[in-house]
């Protein structure tokens, strides 16, 4: 199968969708002639021009609110934030307007808007270019939150976002953007709320997401050589969350570890743990374990930055500790 980078895969999805649907347009800073800070729209301006590849002033609240009104009136905006941290200047438009609009209008308005951008700690991005934020958004009714890992998943999930009528936050970990992977030819879409089981195993279930998956896969493969059997699950979307796949796995393994780059308090791991305890308590042979990034703003120095994110050693230790319980 051909190989594409994560960014090339989403760009292909966007390009194909824009060819097919004249209602789709992209807004953002530098997504026009420049093609996007992360090349998310490279080559599209030449094809579609300035109304469909709309460069904006540094006016996040303004263009998010504008795109809300656009989506309400029949077009299909894609907001490209570059760094997802920038969405924080538009939280009122997102939470009070975009997320609630379909409900407030009793379903007579749809809200087909994609808000995309890169997340994640790495490359000394420091505090304003490294946030993850997805537990905050997963808390809210009215928006979908996709967190793809592989290029193939990125294209399939982006296609679902492009074709649906709900607001979607599409979060792209910056350390994944240039990673290559196989991407199927032809058209396909991956539904939201369907976890991907990356490794089948019997002794322990590990849920991991986004860039943490790359590290977790490396650890799984190392431990597999020792005969340790790990079931590795990528939820792919955290709203909706495919809890059934996790429960089925825990029924088999009796042990659950959640590996997540972002904070533990009120986080995705806390939600998964609560649901598994509620519905799968009798399947558990050990306490549910979480391995998270440190509950702190992101530091700049490489020495400090490395200290706040789980690494392969920490993941391996967490798995071994849970197996010893």
């Amino acid at each position, binding site marked *: 199968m051909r190989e594409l980078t994560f960014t090339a895969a989403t760009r292909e999805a966007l390009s194909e969708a824009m060819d097919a649907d004249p209602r789709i347009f992209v807004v953002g800073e530098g997504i026009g002639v420049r093609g996007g800070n992360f090349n998310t729209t490279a080559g599209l301006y030449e094809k579609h021009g300035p109304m469909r590849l709309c460069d904006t002033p540094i*006016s996040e*609240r303004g263009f998010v609110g504008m795109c809300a009104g656009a989506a309400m009136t029949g*077009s299909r905006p894609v907001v490209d934030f570059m760094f997802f941290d920038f969405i924080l200047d538009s939280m009122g438009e997102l939470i009070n307007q975009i997320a609630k609009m379909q409900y407030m209008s009793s379903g007579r308005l749809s809200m087909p808007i994609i808000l995309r951008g890169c997340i994640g700690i790495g490359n000394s991005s420091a505090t304003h270019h490294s946030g993850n934020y997805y537990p905050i958004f997963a808390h809210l009714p009215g928006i979908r939150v996709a967190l793809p890992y592989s290029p193939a998943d990125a294209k399939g999930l982006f296609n679902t976002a492009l074709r649906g009528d709900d607001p979607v936050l599409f979060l792209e970990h910056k350390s994944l953007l240039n990673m290559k992977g196989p991407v199927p030819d032809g058209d396909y879409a991956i539904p939201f709320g369907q976890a991907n089981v990356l490794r089948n195993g019997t002794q322990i279930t590990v849920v991991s997401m986004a860039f943490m998956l790359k590290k977790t896969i490396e650890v799984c493969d190392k431990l597999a050589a020792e005969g340790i059997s790990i079931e590795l699950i990528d939820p792919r979307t955290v709203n909706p969350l495919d809890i059934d796949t996790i429960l089925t796995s825990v029924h088999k393994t009796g042990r659950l570890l959640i590996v997540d780059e972002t904070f533990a308090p009120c986080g995705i791991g806390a939600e998964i743990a609560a649901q598994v305890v509620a519905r799968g308590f009798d399947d558990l042979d050990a306490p549910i374990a979480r391995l998270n990034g440190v509950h702190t703003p992101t530091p700049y120095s490489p020495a400090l930055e490395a200290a706040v994110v789980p690494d392969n050693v920490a993941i391996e230790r967490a798995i071994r500790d849970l197996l010893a319980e």
Partner: protein
Amino acid sequence: MTTAANPTAPAFASDSTLHALDSAAHLALYRGMLVIRRTEEQLARAHQSGFIPGACHTYVGEEAVATGVCAHLDRKDAVFSTHRGHGHALAKGVPPREVAAELFGRATGCSRGRGGSMHLFSPEVGMMGTSGIVGPCILQATGAGYTFKLLNQPQVGVAFFGDGAVNNGAFHEGLNLAAIYGLPVLFICENNMYATEIAFSYATRNTDVGARGALYGIPGVTVDGNDIMAVYAAADEATKRARSGGGPTLIECRTYRTRPHAEGMRDGGYRSLEEVDSWKQRDPIQTYRARLLAADKATADQLTAIENEVKALAEEAIEFAKNSPYPDPATASEHIYHA
């Protein structure tokens, strides 16, 4: 505080518009204002009687603005409004009974009981929502303009907002975005001199909202918002400009709400009763009525017939609301997602 803080703006083509419009057009405008007034009088009464469980911000005194602007719109034009939005919804064509039923929290309300006064939705007639948050309507109307330009449709987006919104960042960002993209949008500022109970003259050192258009490189005008002819003329020019690709316009309509910020709140304290009375003397409906008669644009019989018909319409709206069922509790979490 006196009316001098907000002097009556110059008549914007008011007399020439009065003479240019035919009787049918005038009677429609008169009826439009009266539908808002009579419906809201009923709503205020219903609020006092406990039929309205939530907030009720009336538009009494400001009817000329919504009516004069919406006269230039059809169902496909998109209106985005504020917490003081009954007038906009009614002027855009939402039936009084659907507005009343929504405030009563009934299943037959225009938002099916999910919204109340501050979330009136009727996309079928281009009423894209009133809002409990001050400012977003400016951005959303800009977005509607973006859709219409992108898809080559002849419609316009219209934002109604108060003086309280113009010191909010959404005003700055929305007008700037609409300006740089040349979008078909009308920004209608209803300057009623108070944001809740904070005087506009306190909240800004420059109370000339119309002049702010120039800051964004777009036309900006100020009109007497109690003079429906002035509002009508300004909105006529702005909608024609927008529909012909000329971009957005800011229109400041200087007006006044003669009832409290919200039903159940105090009337004075932050403003003098003399000030309230002076604006009641300039009631937009009574003023217009007198001008129509003086200019022979309508007969007393014609106006009386409209008054009787609208009175019955407003009373029927309340009866409809009272007799409507509440929504099924089992539907409380429906419509969060499309799919």
